[in-house]
Protein backbone atom coordinates (compact mmCIF):
# COMPACT_ATOMS: atom_id res chain seq x y z
CA UNK A 1 0.00 0.00 0.00
CA UNK A 2 1.24 3.46 -0.73
CA UNK A 3 0.22 7.09 -0.37
CA UNK A 4 1.79 9.82 -2.46
CA UNK A 5 2.24 13.45 -1.55
CA UNK A 6 -1.01 15.38 -1.69
CA UNK A 7 -2.96 12.25 -2.53
CA UNK A 8 -6.28 11.21 -1.00
CA UNK A 9 -6.65 7.45 -0.63
CA UNK A 10 -9.70 5.69 0.79
CA UNK A 11 -9.75 2.22 2.31
CA UNK A 12 -12.98 0.24 2.22
CA UNK A 13 -13.46 -3.15 3.81
CA UNK A 14 -15.87 -5.25 5.86
CA UNK A 15 -15.99 -4.43 9.56
CA UNK A 16 -13.54 -6.37 11.66
CA UNK A 17 -11.07 -6.82 8.83
CA UNK A 18 -8.46 -4.79 10.67
CA UNK A 19 -8.70 -1.35 9.09
CA UNK A 20 -8.30 0.39 12.43
CA UNK A 21 -5.41 -1.90 13.31
CA UNK A 22 -3.75 -0.75 10.11
CA UNK A 23 -4.04 2.86 11.29
CA UNK A 24 -2.72 1.94 14.73
CA UNK A 25 0.33 0.46 13.02
CA UNK A 26 0.88 3.43 10.70
CA UNK A 27 0.57 5.88 13.60
CA UNK A 28 3.08 3.81 15.59
CA UNK A 29 0.73 2.76 18.40
CA UNK A 30 0.99 -0.93 17.56
CA UNK A 31 3.81 -3.04 16.19
CA UNK A 32 3.05 -5.06 13.04
CA UNK A 33 3.63 -8.83 12.99
CA UNK A 34 5.22 -8.39 9.60
CA UNK A 35 5.93 -5.50 7.27
CA UNK A 36 7.25 -2.00 7.85
CA UNK A 37 6.07 1.60 7.71
CA UNK A 38 8.15 3.95 5.59
CA UNK A 39 7.58 7.70 5.47
CA UNK A 40 9.79 9.71 3.09
CA UNK A 41 12.06 6.68 2.87
CA UNK A 42 12.61 6.51 6.62
CA UNK A 43 11.52 3.56 8.76
CA UNK A 44 8.77 4.72 11.15
CA UNK A 45 7.59 1.28 12.33
CA UNK A 46 6.47 1.57 15.97
CA UNK A 47 7.29 5.29 16.21
CA UNK A 48 4.53 7.65 17.29
CA UNK A 49 4.29 11.37 16.73
CA UNK A 50 4.81 11.50 12.96
CA UNK A 51 1.36 11.23 11.37
CA UNK A 52 -1.88 12.60 12.77
CA UNK A 53 -4.77 10.31 13.53
CA UNK A 54 -8.44 11.16 13.74
CA UNK A 55 -10.82 8.78 15.42
CA UNK A 56 -14.47 8.13 14.65
CA UNK A 57 -15.26 9.68 18.04
CA UNK A 58 -14.27 13.34 18.24
CA UNK A 59 -12.33 12.71 21.49
CA UNK A 60 -12.53 16.35 22.49
CA UNK A 61 -11.69 16.98 26.14
CA UNK A 62 -14.85 18.24 27.87
CA UNK A 63 -12.84 20.40 30.29
CA UNK A 64 -11.07 22.39 27.59
CA UNK A 65 -12.53 25.06 25.34
CA UNK A 66 -12.55 24.34 21.61
CA UNK A 67 -9.51 26.57 21.14
CA UNK A 68 -7.56 24.77 23.87
CA UNK A 69 -8.69 21.37 22.60
CA UNK A 70 -7.39 22.15 19.17
CA UNK A 71 -4.13 23.36 20.74
CA UNK A 72 -3.53 20.02 22.44
CA UNK A 73 -1.09 18.53 19.88
CA UNK A 74 0.92 21.76 19.86
CA UNK A 75 1.17 21.66 23.66
CA UNK A 76 2.31 18.03 23.50
CA UNK A 77 4.97 19.18 21.06
CA UNK A 78 6.22 21.62 23.69
CA UNK A 79 4.67 24.95 22.72
CA UNK A 80 3.34 27.22 25.44
CA UNK A 81 -0.42 27.66 25.62
CA UNK A 82 -0.06 31.22 24.35
CA UNK A 83 2.01 30.22 21.32
CA UNK A 84 -0.31 27.30 20.58
CA UNK A 85 -3.38 29.54 20.69
CA UNK A 86 -1.78 32.05 18.38
CA UNK A 87 -0.96 29.26 15.94
CA UNK A 88 -4.45 27.72 16.04
CA UNK A 89 -6.64 30.83 15.92
CA UNK A 90 -6.17 31.73 12.20
CA UNK A 91 -7.52 28.31 11.14
CA UNK A 92 -10.90 28.66 12.84
CA UNK A 93 -12.39 30.53 9.90
CA UNK A 94 -11.50 27.86 7.32
CA UNK A 95 -12.78 25.08 9.56
CA UNK A 96 -16.10 26.80 10.10
CA UNK A 97 -15.51 27.31 13.80
CA UNK A 98 -15.04 31.09 13.95
CA UNK A 99 -16.70 32.53 17.03
CA UNK A 100 -16.68 29.23 18.91
CA UNK A 101 -13.13 29.44 20.25
CA UNK A 102 -14.21 29.87 23.88
CA UNK A 103 -17.08 27.37 23.78
CA UNK A 104 -16.86 24.00 25.47
CA UNK A 105 -17.35 20.83 23.35
CA UNK A 106 -20.71 20.13 25.05
CA UNK A 107 -22.05 23.35 23.52
CA UNK A 108 -21.31 22.32 19.92
CA UNK A 109 -23.21 20.20 17.40
CA UNK A 110 -21.85 16.85 16.24
CA UNK A 111 -20.69 18.26 12.89
CA UNK A 112 -18.84 21.14 14.55
CA UNK A 113 -17.19 18.81 17.01
CA UNK A 114 -15.91 16.65 14.14
CA UNK A 115 -14.57 19.77 12.41
CA UNK A 116 -12.81 20.74 15.63
CA UNK A 117 -11.34 17.23 15.86
CA UNK A 118 -10.20 17.55 12.27
CA UNK A 119 -8.57 20.91 12.95
CA UNK A 120 -6.77 19.34 15.92
CA UNK A 121 -5.62 16.54 13.61
CA UNK A 122 -4.49 19.04 11.01
CA UNK A 123 -2.53 21.11 13.53
CA UNK A 124 -0.68 18.04 14.70
CA UNK A 125 0.65 16.94 11.33
CA UNK A 126 -0.57 18.78 8.29
CA UNK A 127 1.22 16.63 5.71
CA UNK A 128 -0.14 13.16 6.50
CA UNK A 129 -3.52 12.60 8.14
CA UNK A 130 -5.21 9.29 8.95
CA UNK A 131 -8.98 9.63 9.16
CA UNK A 132 -10.78 6.66 10.70
CA UNK A 133 -14.45 7.00 9.68
CA UNK A 134 -14.39 10.66 10.65
CA UNK A 135 -18.07 11.20 9.83
CA UNK A 136 -19.32 7.74 10.81
CA UNK A 137 -21.13 8.96 13.91
CA UNK A 138 -23.00 11.78 12.13
CA UNK A 139 -26.46 11.67 10.58
CA UNK A 140 -26.65 11.24 6.79
CA UNK A 141 -27.39 14.89 5.98
CA UNK A 142 -24.63 16.31 8.15
CA UNK A 143 -22.27 13.68 6.83
CA UNK A 144 -22.88 14.71 3.21
CA UNK A 145 -22.33 18.36 4.14
CA UNK A 146 -19.11 17.49 5.93
CA UNK A 147 -17.85 15.54 2.91
CA UNK A 148 -18.25 18.53 0.61
CA UNK A 149 -16.74 20.77 3.22
CA UNK A 150 -13.73 18.44 3.51
CA UNK A 151 -13.37 18.44 -0.30
CA UNK A 152 -13.23 22.20 -0.52
CA UNK A 153 -11.02 22.60 2.55
CA UNK A 154 -8.47 20.01 1.48
CA UNK A 155 -8.23 21.51 -2.03
CA UNK A 156 -6.57 24.49 -0.33
CA UNK A 157 -4.03 22.48 1.64
CA UNK A 158 -1.26 20.14 0.47
CA UNK A 159 -2.22 17.19 2.64
CA UNK A 160 -1.93 13.46 2.05
CA UNK A 161 -4.93 11.66 3.50
CA UNK A 162 -5.71 8.03 4.26
CA UNK A 163 -9.43 7.60 4.92
CA UNK A 164 -11.17 4.56 6.36
CA UNK A 165 -14.84 4.36 5.45
CA UNK A 166 -17.79 2.02 5.03
CA UNK A 167 -19.45 4.40 2.64
CA UNK A 168 -18.78 3.68 -1.04
CA UNK A 169 -20.04 7.10 -2.15
CA UNK A 170 -17.88 8.85 0.42
CA UNK A 171 -14.82 6.99 -0.84
CA UNK A 172 -15.47 7.80 -4.50
CA UNK A 173 -16.41 11.40 -3.84
CA UNK A 174 -13.31 12.23 -1.82
CA UNK A 175 -10.52 9.94 -2.97
CA UNK A 176 -8.04 9.75 -5.83
CA UNK A 177 -7.62 6.06 -5.22
CA UNK A 178 -9.55 3.37 -3.35
CA UNK A 179 -8.23 0.19 -1.76
CA UNK A 180 -10.80 -2.54 -1.16
CA UNK A 181 -9.86 -4.98 1.59
CA UNK A 182 -11.10 -8.55 1.90
CA UNK A 183 -12.50 -10.35 4.97
CA UNK A 184 -10.01 -11.46 7.63
CA UNK A 185 -7.18 -12.01 7.04
CA UNK A 186 -7.36 -8.76 5.11
CA UNK A 187 -5.73 -8.57 1.70
CA UNK A 188 -5.99 -5.83 -0.87
CA UNK A 189 -8.75 -7.19 -3.09
CA UNK A 190 -8.84 -4.29 -5.49
CA UNK A 191 -7.03 -1.04 -6.13
CA UNK A 192 -9.24 1.37 -7.98
CA UNK A 193 -8.21 4.68 -9.52
CA UNK A 194 -10.92 7.31 -9.21
CA UNK A 195 -10.29 9.49 -12.24
CA UNK A 196 -13.23 11.83 -11.71
CA UNK A 197 -12.47 15.47 -12.51
CA UNK A 198 -11.92 17.98 -9.68
CA UNK A 199 -13.40 20.12 -8.29
CA UNK A 200 -16.15 17.65 -7.47
CA UNK A 201 -19.64 18.68 -6.46
CA UNK A 202 -23.17 17.30 -5.99
CA UNK A 203 -23.22 16.72 -9.76
CA UNK A 204 -20.32 14.27 -9.44
CA UNK A 205 -22.58 11.97 -7.43
CA UNK A 206 -24.84 11.39 -10.45
CA UNK A 207 -22.24 11.52 -13.23
CA UNK A 208 -22.15 8.32 -15.35
CA UNK A 209 -18.46 7.75 -14.55
CA UNK A 210 -19.23 7.97 -10.81
CA UNK A 211 -22.12 5.54 -11.09
CA UNK A 212 -19.98 3.09 -13.08
CA UNK A 213 -17.26 3.16 -10.42
CA UNK A 214 -19.85 2.76 -7.69
CA UNK A 215 -21.31 -0.30 -9.41
CA UNK A 216 -17.86 -1.80 -9.68
CA UNK A 217 -17.17 -1.28 -5.97
CA UNK A 218 -20.53 -2.59 -4.84
CA UNK A 219 -20.09 -5.73 -6.95
CA UNK A 220 -16.77 -6.59 -5.38
CA UNK A 221 -17.77 -5.80 -1.78
Amino acid at each position, binding site marked *: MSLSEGEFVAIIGPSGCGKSTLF*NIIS*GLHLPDAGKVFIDGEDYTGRTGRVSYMHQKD*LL*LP*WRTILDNVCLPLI*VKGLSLKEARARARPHFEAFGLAGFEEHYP*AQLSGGMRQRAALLRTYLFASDIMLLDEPFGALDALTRRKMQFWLLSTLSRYQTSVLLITHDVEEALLLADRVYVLSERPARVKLELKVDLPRPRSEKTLTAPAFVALKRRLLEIL
Partner: protein
Amino acid sequence: MAAASFCSFLLLWEGTVRFFKIEAWLLPAPTAVLAALGEGWPLFWKHTFVTLYESLMGFVLAVALALALALTMDALPLVRRALYPLLVTTQTIPIISVAPLFLIWFGYGLLPKVLVVVLVCFFPVAVSLLESLAAVDPDLIDLLRSMGAGRMARLRLVKLPAALPGLLSGLKIAASYSIMGAVIGEWLGAQAGLGYYMTLSQRSFATPRVFAIILIITVLSLAWFKVIEIAERLIMPWQRLRSEE
Protein backbone atom coordinates in the same frame (compact mmCIF):
# COMPACT_ATOMS: atom_id res chain seq x y z
CA MET B 1 -40.44 19.44 49.77
CA ALA B 2 -37.60 18.22 51.98
CA ALA B 3 -37.84 21.34 54.12
CA ALA B 4 -41.62 20.95 54.52
CA SER B 5 -41.43 17.32 55.61
CA PHE B 6 -38.59 18.15 58.00
CA CYS B 7 -40.62 20.96 59.57
CA SER B 8 -43.71 18.79 60.02
CA PHE B 9 -41.51 16.11 61.60
CA LEU B 10 -40.20 18.67 64.11
CA LEU B 11 -43.74 19.85 64.88
CA LEU B 12 -44.91 16.28 65.44
CA TRP B 13 -41.94 15.68 67.73
CA GLU B 14 -42.59 18.84 69.74
CA GLY B 15 -46.31 18.07 69.99
CA THR B 16 -45.75 14.46 71.09
CA VAL B 17 -43.31 15.45 73.83
CA ARG B 18 -45.68 18.15 75.16
CA PHE B 19 -48.84 16.08 74.90
CA PHE B 20 -47.47 13.02 76.69
CA LYS B 21 -45.37 15.16 79.06
CA ILE B 22 -42.25 13.14 78.29
CA GLU B 23 -39.34 13.96 80.64
CA ALA B 24 -36.46 15.90 79.06
CA TRP B 25 -33.83 13.32 80.09
CA LEU B 26 -35.78 10.70 78.12
CA LEU B 27 -36.66 12.68 75.01
CA PRO B 28 -36.20 16.46 74.91
CA ALA B 29 -38.43 18.54 72.64
CA PRO B 30 -36.74 20.40 69.76
CA THR B 31 -37.24 23.68 71.63
CA ALA B 32 -35.50 22.22 74.69
CA VAL B 33 -32.56 21.16 72.51
CA LEU B 34 -32.27 24.68 71.12
CA ALA B 35 -32.47 26.12 74.63
CA ALA B 36 -29.61 23.82 75.76
CA LEU B 37 -27.60 24.94 72.76
CA GLY B 38 -28.17 28.61 73.62
CA GLU B 39 -27.27 28.21 77.30
CA GLY B 40 -24.02 26.28 76.88
CA TRP B 41 -22.89 28.17 73.78
CA PRO B 42 -19.25 28.96 74.77
CA LEU B 43 -18.65 25.36 75.90
CA PHE B 44 -20.18 23.91 72.72
CA TRP B 45 -18.02 26.21 70.64
CA LYS B 46 -14.85 25.11 72.44
CA HIS B 47 -15.52 21.41 71.82
CA THR B 48 -16.69 22.01 68.26
CA PHE B 49 -13.42 23.76 67.52
CA VAL B 50 -11.40 20.77 68.79
CA THR B 51 -13.40 18.31 66.68
CA LEU B 52 -13.22 20.53 63.61
CA TYR B 53 -9.45 20.80 63.99
CA GLU B 54 -9.01 17.03 64.28
CA SER B 55 -11.24 16.28 61.32
CA LEU B 56 -9.51 18.86 59.14
CA MET B 57 -6.05 17.51 59.99
CA GLY B 58 -7.17 13.95 59.38
CA PHE B 59 -8.91 14.87 56.15
CA VAL B 60 -5.91 16.67 54.67
CA LEU B 61 -3.58 13.86 55.70
CA ALA B 62 -5.92 11.19 54.31
CA VAL B 63 -6.28 13.02 50.99
CA ALA B 64 -2.53 13.45 50.62
CA LEU B 65 -1.93 9.76 51.36
CA ALA B 66 -4.78 8.62 49.11
CA LEU B 67 -3.55 10.72 46.17
CA ALA B 68 -0.01 9.41 46.52
CA LEU B 69 -1.13 5.79 46.79
CA ALA B 70 -3.73 5.94 44.01
CA LEU B 71 -1.30 7.58 41.59
CA THR B 72 1.39 5.03 42.40
CA MET B 73 -1.02 2.14 42.02
CA ASP B 74 -2.29 3.51 38.71
CA ALA B 75 1.20 3.98 37.33
CA LEU B 76 2.46 0.56 38.44
CA PRO B 77 0.00 -2.26 37.71
CA LEU B 78 2.05 -4.65 39.83
CA VAL B 79 1.66 -2.46 42.91
CA ARG B 80 -2.03 -2.15 42.13
CA ARG B 81 -2.55 -5.88 41.99
CA ALA B 82 -0.55 -6.36 45.18
CA LEU B 83 -2.22 -3.64 47.25
CA TYR B 84 -5.81 -3.41 46.03
CA PRO B 85 -7.12 -6.49 47.91
CA LEU B 86 -5.32 -5.26 51.02
CA LEU B 87 -6.92 -1.86 50.67
CA VAL B 88 -10.38 -3.41 50.50
CA THR B 89 -9.63 -5.71 53.44
CA THR B 90 -8.71 -2.79 55.69
CA GLN B 91 -12.21 -1.45 55.11
CA THR B 92 -13.82 -4.56 56.53
CA ILE B 93 -12.15 -3.99 59.91
CA PRO B 94 -14.65 -2.13 62.09
CA ILE B 95 -13.21 1.24 63.12
CA ILE B 96 -14.78 0.93 66.51
CA SER B 97 -12.58 -2.08 67.30
CA VAL B 98 -9.34 -0.49 66.07
CA ALA B 99 -9.80 2.90 67.69
CA PRO B 100 -9.17 1.61 71.26
CA LEU B 101 -5.85 0.19 70.03
CA PHE B 102 -4.86 3.66 68.85
CA LEU B 103 -5.59 4.81 72.38
CA ILE B 104 -3.23 2.20 73.81
CA TRP B 105 -0.53 3.02 71.28
CA PHE B 106 -0.77 6.78 71.04
CA GLY B 107 -2.42 7.93 74.27
CA TYR B 108 -5.23 10.40 74.85
CA GLY B 109 -3.90 13.26 72.76
CA LEU B 110 -4.65 14.56 69.31
CA LEU B 111 -2.89 11.86 67.30
CA PRO B 112 -5.26 8.88 67.77
CA LYS B 113 -8.29 10.99 66.77
CA VAL B 114 -6.56 12.26 63.66
CA LEU B 115 -5.62 8.67 62.82
CA VAL B 116 -9.23 7.50 63.08
CA VAL B 117 -10.24 10.30 60.69
CA VAL B 118 -7.46 9.30 58.29
CA LEU B 119 -8.63 5.71 58.42
CA VAL B 120 -12.21 6.68 57.65
CA CYS B 121 -11.43 9.22 54.92
CA PHE B 122 -8.59 7.50 53.15
CA PHE B 123 -10.54 4.71 51.48
CA PRO B 124 -13.27 6.62 49.60
CA VAL B 125 -10.71 9.06 48.20
CA ALA B 126 -8.17 6.43 47.17
CA VAL B 127 -10.73 4.14 45.56
CA SER B 128 -12.66 6.85 43.73
CA LEU B 129 -9.46 8.28 42.26
CA LEU B 130 -8.13 4.85 41.37
CA GLU B 131 -11.35 3.80 39.65
CA SER B 132 -11.73 7.03 37.71
CA LEU B 133 -8.10 6.94 36.57
CA ALA B 134 -8.70 3.42 35.28
CA ALA B 135 -11.95 4.45 33.60
CA VAL B 136 -10.41 7.09 31.34
CA ASP B 137 -11.34 6.35 27.69
CA PRO B 138 -8.45 4.28 26.27
CA ASP B 139 -9.04 5.91 22.86
CA LEU B 140 -8.18 9.25 24.46
CA ILE B 141 -4.95 7.82 25.84
CA ASP B 142 -4.16 6.39 22.39
CA LEU B 143 -4.84 9.77 20.79
CA LEU B 144 -2.30 11.38 23.11
CA ARG B 145 0.14 8.55 22.51
CA SER B 146 -0.21 8.94 18.74
CA MET B 147 0.76 12.58 19.25
CA GLY B 148 3.91 11.35 20.93
CA ALA B 149 2.89 12.39 24.46
CA GLY B 150 4.83 10.71 27.27
CA ARG B 151 3.47 9.26 30.50
CA MET B 152 3.62 12.53 32.46
CA ALA B 153 2.04 14.55 29.68
CA ARG B 154 -0.80 12.04 29.40
CA LEU B 155 -1.36 12.18 33.15
CA ARG B 156 -1.38 15.97 33.23
CA LEU B 157 -3.37 16.65 30.07
CA VAL B 158 -5.90 13.83 30.12
CA LYS B 159 -5.93 11.39 33.01
CA LEU B 160 -5.98 13.79 35.96
CA PRO B 161 -8.61 16.18 34.56
CA ALA B 162 -10.72 13.23 33.46
CA ALA B 163 -10.49 11.68 36.94
CA LEU B 164 -11.37 14.94 38.70
CA PRO B 165 -15.16 14.42 38.89
CA GLY B 166 -14.66 10.96 40.40
CA LEU B 167 -12.07 12.24 42.84
CA LEU B 168 -14.38 15.02 43.98
CA SER B 169 -17.26 12.67 44.68
CA GLY B 170 -14.83 10.65 46.80
CA LEU B 171 -13.78 13.84 48.58
CA LYS B 172 -17.42 14.68 49.31
CA ILE B 173 -17.98 11.34 51.01
CA ALA B 174 -14.70 11.61 52.93
CA ALA B 175 -15.46 15.16 54.04
CA SER B 176 -18.83 14.24 55.49
CA TYR B 177 -17.28 11.18 57.21
CA SER B 178 -14.42 13.16 58.71
CA ILE B 179 -16.48 14.74 61.51
CA MET B 180 -17.94 11.37 62.44
CA GLY B 181 -14.43 9.86 62.50
CA ALA B 182 -13.17 12.50 64.90
CA VAL B 183 -16.20 12.05 67.16
CA ILE B 184 -15.65 8.28 67.33
CA GLY B 185 -12.03 8.90 68.23
CA GLU B 186 -13.01 11.27 71.03
CA TRP B 187 -15.68 8.95 72.27
CA LEU B 188 -13.15 6.36 73.33
CA GLY B 189 -11.02 8.69 75.33
CA ALA B 190 -10.32 12.39 75.16
CA GLN B 191 -10.15 15.57 77.20
CA ALA B 192 -12.05 17.71 74.73
CA GLY B 193 -14.12 17.57 71.55
CA LEU B 194 -17.75 16.92 70.68
CA GLY B 195 -17.41 13.15 71.18
CA TYR B 196 -15.96 13.65 74.65
CA TYR B 197 -18.63 16.18 75.56
CA MET B 198 -21.31 13.83 74.29
CA THR B 199 -20.21 10.91 76.51
CA LEU B 200 -19.97 13.32 79.43
CA SER B 201 -23.49 14.62 78.82
CA GLN B 202 -24.84 11.12 78.36
CA ARG B 203 -23.47 9.96 81.71
CA SER B 204 -25.10 12.88 83.50
CA PHE B 205 -28.40 12.32 81.62
CA ALA B 206 -28.19 15.81 80.10
CA THR B 207 -30.12 14.49 77.12
CA PRO B 208 -30.98 17.91 75.58
CA ARG B 209 -27.23 18.55 75.41
CA VAL B 210 -26.67 15.18 73.68
CA PHE B 211 -29.24 16.14 71.06
CA ALA B 212 -27.65 19.56 70.67
CA ILE B 213 -24.30 17.87 69.99
CA ILE B 214 -25.90 15.56 67.43
CA LEU B 215 -27.33 18.65 65.76
CA ILE B 216 -23.90 20.29 65.65
CA ILE B 217 -22.28 17.15 64.18
CA THR B 218 -24.94 16.93 61.48
CA VAL B 219 -24.63 20.59 60.55
CA LEU B 220 -20.83 20.38 60.46
CA SER B 221 -20.87 17.29 58.23
CA LEU B 222 -23.35 18.90 55.85
CA ALA B 223 -21.29 22.09 55.77
CA TRP B 224 -18.16 20.10 54.91
CA PHE B 225 -20.05 18.39 52.11
CA LYS B 226 -21.27 21.75 50.82
CA VAL B 227 -17.77 23.24 50.84
CA ILE B 228 -16.50 20.48 48.56
CA GLU B 229 -19.55 20.86 46.34
CA ILE B 230 -18.88 24.57 45.89
CA ALA B 231 -15.21 23.85 45.18
CA GLU B 232 -16.36 21.30 42.61
CA ARG B 233 -18.41 23.91 40.79
CA LEU B 234 -15.52 26.36 40.78
CA ILE B 235 -12.93 23.87 39.53
CA MET B 236 -15.09 22.26 36.87
CA PRO B 237 -17.25 24.85 35.11
CA TRP B 238 -17.73 22.50 32.15
CA GLN B 239 -19.64 20.00 34.31
CA ARG B 240 -22.44 22.51 34.73
CA LEU B 241 -22.67 22.98 30.96
CA ARG B 242 -23.30 19.31 30.47
CA SER B 243 -26.10 19.19 33.00
CA GLU B 244 -27.72 22.27 31.47
CA GLU B 245 -28.19 20.47 28.14
